[in-house]
């Protein structure tokens, strides 16, 4: 079977209903807090699931050996992490399955799952089922299905993760007791896990009722009053979030005295759903699908509103922006028809960060990331045209990229940011002059 697979097309190993009881689903890490909560939901559904936490160079080496090296870095890491786990001997290969998300867009990321299967087959693990989690019904497994209630719980778990990430990011740089923000995150992860156990009828109400208390507890963390330079992190979803992918970028920024600002995962989901509606608008067809998307979008937006309102009501923290605002803000820069990879959302996040006062941004991407040529590096110029104060650095990540080089570029960005904030008053005149110059050539509305 192994031979057959590497030689040609092979039937994929299915996740059968029996496996639900015998097999453990292994999930690669991206956002530990979010994923921990999501795993709890899977467990409630009767699956055995485990988050892979192995990291280090052996992960990269496994990836390099099994995946075409010109493939994007996240694929290499995700697959490397899975194979590294397999080779660690910690798991019985006959008792596990892998789980991986698949967005089904025009980016090559949709192919991760196939590359994973190829890699497994090459190593003689062709029998291990790989379960795809996707919104586009790309492929199915008889033993794996999520009930609507489980899906909804996953959404709640994800939003709770976003909230914890948002608040802890605003606390961590200022905490008086090192580690106190993380401990609070752990505490709330446990608490929310308990809430997620409840029936779907009451679960959302329960979680929502905890929001004020949760936000309040972060607000009460003893923090220093100083104001650090906020630095936004945007980019390809995996390297943006995963410390494994971005060489511990958040940690580095913290150690350099900056405050990392990371947009949440919900925005990406909203973006995916939104694209279903936009597709119908641009090309026609798929009426039912787009109507479904509209319904889901409205549902998610309502939940987003609950969180934003709760943060506002408490008053200590900066809430995420409404998705509608995000959509509107990107309008002058890029059409929302750009839907591959992170698409227009990436540009939108940069604009939104700047508008909310986060002028310094690290735009992360795997080396040679196709969509980011357009929506990342390709848009920096227009963003700076309208926001001369923006200080954006694009950083490429890949297995050979040296950390020194990456850090040097980020340091330059930080040096500029510090100079800017240090001499803010003195340079205000200069900036306003620059912005006047830029308005001297008004940008006509894009022809569309």
């Amino acid at each position: 079977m192994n031979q057959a697979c590497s030689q040609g097309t092979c039937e994929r190993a299915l996740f059968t209903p029996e496996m639900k009881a015998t097999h453990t689903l292994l999930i690669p890490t991206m956002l530990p807090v979010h994923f921990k909560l999501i795993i709890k939901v899977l467990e409630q559904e009767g699956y055995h699931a485990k988050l892979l936490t192995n990291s280090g160079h052996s992960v990269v080496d496994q990836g390099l050996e099994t995946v075409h090296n010109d493939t994007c870095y996240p694929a290499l890491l995700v697959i490397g992490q899975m194979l590294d786990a397999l080779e660690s001997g910690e798991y019985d290969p006959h008792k596990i399955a892998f789980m991986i998300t698949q967005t089904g867009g025009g980016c090559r990321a949709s192919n991760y799952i196939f590359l994973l299967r190829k890699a497994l087959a090459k190593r003689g693990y062709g029998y291990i089922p790989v379960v795809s989690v996707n919104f586009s019904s790309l492929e199915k497994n008889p033993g794996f299905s999520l009930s609507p209630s489980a899906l909804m719980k996953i959404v709640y778990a994800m939003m709770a993760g976003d909230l914890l990430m948002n608040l802890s990011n605003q606390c961590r740089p200022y905490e008086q007791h090192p580690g106190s923000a993380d401990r609070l995150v752990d505490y709330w992860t446990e608490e929310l896990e308990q809430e997620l156990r409840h029936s779907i009828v009451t679960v959302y109400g329960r979680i929502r009722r905890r929001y004020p208390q949760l936000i309040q507890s972060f607000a009460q963390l003893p923090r220093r009053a100083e104001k650090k330079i906020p630095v936004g992190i945007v980019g390809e979803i995996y390297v943006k979030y995963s410390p494994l992918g971005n060489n511990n970028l958040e940690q580095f920024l913290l150690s350099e005295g900056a405050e990392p600002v990371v947009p949440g995962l919900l925005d990406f989901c909203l973006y995916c759903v939104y694209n279903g509606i936009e597709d119908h608008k641009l090309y026609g067809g798929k009426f039912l699908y787009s109507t479904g998307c509209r319904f889901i979008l409205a549902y998610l937006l309502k939940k987003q509103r609950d969180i934003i309102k709760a943060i506002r009501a408490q008053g200590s923290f900066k809430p995420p922006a409404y998705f509608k605002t995000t959509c509107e803000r990107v309008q002058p820069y890029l059409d929302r028809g750009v839907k591959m990879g992170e698409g227009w959302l990436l540009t939108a996040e940069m604009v939104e960060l700047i508008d909310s006062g986060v002028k310094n941004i690290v735009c992360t991407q795997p080396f040679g990331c196709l969509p980011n040529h357009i929506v990342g590096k390709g848009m920096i110029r227009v963003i700076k045209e309208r926001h001369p104060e923006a200080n954006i650095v694009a950083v490429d990540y890949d297995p050979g990229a040296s950390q020194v080089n990456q850090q040097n570029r980020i340091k330059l960005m930080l040096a500029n940011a510090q100079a800017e904030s240090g001499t803010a008053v003195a340079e205000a005149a200069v900036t306003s002059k620059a912005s006047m110059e830029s308005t001297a050539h008004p940008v006509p509305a894009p022809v569309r």
Partner: protein
Amino acid sequence: MNISIGIDIGSTTVKVVVMENRQILFQHYERHLSQVRQKTAEILRLAEPVLRGRQFSAAISGSAGFGVAKLAEIPFIQEVFATSKAVEAFYPGTDIVIELGGEDAKILFLTGGLEERMNGSCAGGTGAFIDQMASLLAVTPQQLDELSLQYQKIYPIASRCGVFAKSDIQPLLNQGAAKADIAMSIFQAVVNQTITGLAQGRPIEGKVAFLGGPLYFFQGLRRRFQETLQLTDENALFPETGPYAVAMGAAVHAARQQPVTDYNTLLTRIEQSAGQLGDSRFLPPLFETQAQYNEFAARHAKASVPQKNLDTYTGPAYLGIDCGSTTTKLVLISKDGALLDQYYGSNQGNPLDVVQRELIRIRERCGARVSIQGAVSTGYGEELIKSAFSIDKGIVETMAHFQAARHFNPQVDFILDIGGQDIKCFKVRNQSIDSIMLNEACSSGCGSFLETFAKSMGYTAQEFAQAGLFAKHPVDLGSRCTVFMNSSVKQSQKDGAGVDDISAGLSMSVVKNAIYKVIRARSADELGENVVVQGGTFYNDAVLRSFELELGRQVIRPSIAGLMGAYGAALTARGLGLAQSSLLSLEQLRAFTHTARPMVCQGCNNHCSLTVNTFGDGGKYISGNRREKPLGKKAAQKLSDLYEYKLNRIKALEPVKGARGKIGIPMGLNQFENIPFWHTFFTELGFEVVLSDISVLELYAKGRGSIPSDTVCYPAKLMHGHIENLLEKQVNTIFYPCMSYNFEEKKGDNHYNCPVVAYYPELLRANMPKLKKVRFLYPFLGVHRRRGFVQKAYQYFKSQPEFRGIRFLQLKRAADKAYARYEQWKQDVAVEGQKALEYARQNGLKIIVLAGRPYHIDPEINHGINQLITSLGLVVVSEDAVADLVPPTKVNVLNQWTYHARLYNAASWVATQPDAELVQLVSFGCGIDAITTDEVMIILERSGKLYTQIKIDEITNLGAVKIRIRSLLGALEEREHNFSS
């Protein structure tokens, strides 16, 4: 004001400046040869007279300075930031700063919106790059500069990274181009890289200050910058203090602080920061003990060739010449294959002189006793040598290597050759070459890389290799390209790795690069049982040992590892069965002279840069043209070529004057295929459709300035030039739609375009301010749903002024005709494809399916590879012409891009045809082809077909392409031969 010191520790040099009241009291600039801390301390001692007894403040800057600053607890200032401080203080009125360092390049826009940019992960076009190029030309950087001032002509040389540039320069050298011209071309490449990579569309105007070592020392580079940027003398600032700018900035920065240290404290802190190991990764040593090494050495000593003394030998002899990219090898063998004479040496940038000298020596030694009965040349310079010295035959180098390896071990099933410039490897199955892999433009890590590195650290290649053998902690440097390795080495040096550790680490990297990047093997078993390694690089025991360790098995390294190509050529010469070789006689050799002259061919539209070598006897060899045969003479039989057919069809599209005026369309990317659709659509609607010209290098250069992402594929980069071209044509409306989806051909799971093709118009709009002056229409349109297209297109166009008064039915009619035209066009290509296949079969010719994307028919993208192939006597068919001849192919991956689905189908078709082979064209940077190449290879190999991939970029070395195609032909020939016998 107080006294302050600025220390700039760069990738290759240390600069120290001591300053008081903006007066420089002391300045020093020296290469640190990776001994970062020692060198810094040394220079500090030199500064003792001005520092002793004073209290002063200090700051460190530079890419290698961070670690030192941290350990020595001295403030660190980022180097670009330091530069801006220096400019502020010392060169007021400057608008733009261009600073080149050892491995960094920076540009600072100071006026009109402050912006600072530095090179990213691709660090071509820097001081280290120039050093590398100088050693390639066998001159010192100083001499390179002197040479450059005598240039006459500039050749296009890629500067994205050293590897690209080398593969451009090497053929130039081999073709005999003047060193002066190459030297200046190298500087021009640096200039181009700075403009493309860093300025990214922001104009470089006003007063420009040029800082950093290279811009201070190299006059030629200065001149290229000034001329290319068209700067007047007043506006081009080359300050005397240029190399010290960063150190000066650091000193200025330090001066703002209170004095905190004195001479002794500073020196002690710097010295004590040394020797602390950081977070670099280390590998186990190559050899634990001397005994281990002795056993290893004894084992390899066994693989040797018998030698005979030429001074006493009588009888026939056979000559093999391997004129490689950096070295020239000659071998003379006896009838029984014993070595009579051998030569291995650098070709010093001029292989003809070397070969002439060696041939004279050999002829002299032979005297009348030994008759040379056959001579064969191979390698990069094969043809040049063949025509210069009247050699009997030239063979492609892969075949030469195979001949030699087989002689050594008839069971050989895998050959790996790491030469100075290239890595070649091939599997052998059924006594013939089964698959050939050559290093692509980006996977570097060959012998010359090690050599250059050794030199840059002040060692010879041998000393460097020797140092690595017993290194205690070899550094793990990864396996990507040279540029990345440079940075990794920098990092490891920061962490205190010594020269021995770096040498061993680099050997390991070279090996890993070969195994995982070029061969892409997953395990030793994939390489086979009997592995023969050869090429000069394997003389390096550290590399050989690394290879065996990584593979986990023993391999054979013949004692003549570096001569295998020449030896194989000599064996081939022996097989020719000639009574006498046509090789020049001793007198002729002594009288041999040659001159090389550059020219531009006017033979066809390609206008290739040529080098005409004229030999003493009046013979000529012209190199550099795309077609196999020198032009001007009677054109060879014209073979069917679908690439040419498709391109000619597009060229034949005429603008039809219309009532609605002109509409411009850039001819690149998907337009190569969609143009019949849009041309008909707009012509029907009353527009005169103006296309941008077919790409040429100059067109690319025009748009180069506005490319924001350096790593995007070349076809996409060309679009900037096409827009410029349309603007020059005075069109007021440009149409270039965004298309997430392509036409649905029902070959795969979906019908997407790749993200770059889909959204490049958005990028152009955002990065080409000139587009604001015209009407740039870039709607999102989907041609995949016909009904949807008509509705949505109508909604869009009716509100555009150019389309005023347009009616729905009118647009629908135009769309109907456009769809029909598109279908007809595709049909025509299919029919033409059939004709080509029939023609090939009637004439007994082989068919090459040159499988790429529609835009690969662009001559500036394919660099004439299709013509090269037809000139070798093969019929070229494009992938879309055969993709419909088989049912949709099932593949192991998500088959969701229209263009890529055709590749799989084309491969499936080739797999069923005995007389067809597939060559896949892959644009450098095409992320999606990382997925397709593996699949296409699997489809072909399942049917026992050979897979050949050619990576193309801005500049492609056709010489290497030719080797691949000829190797493919050689392997096929061998296969047929084996099959019939």
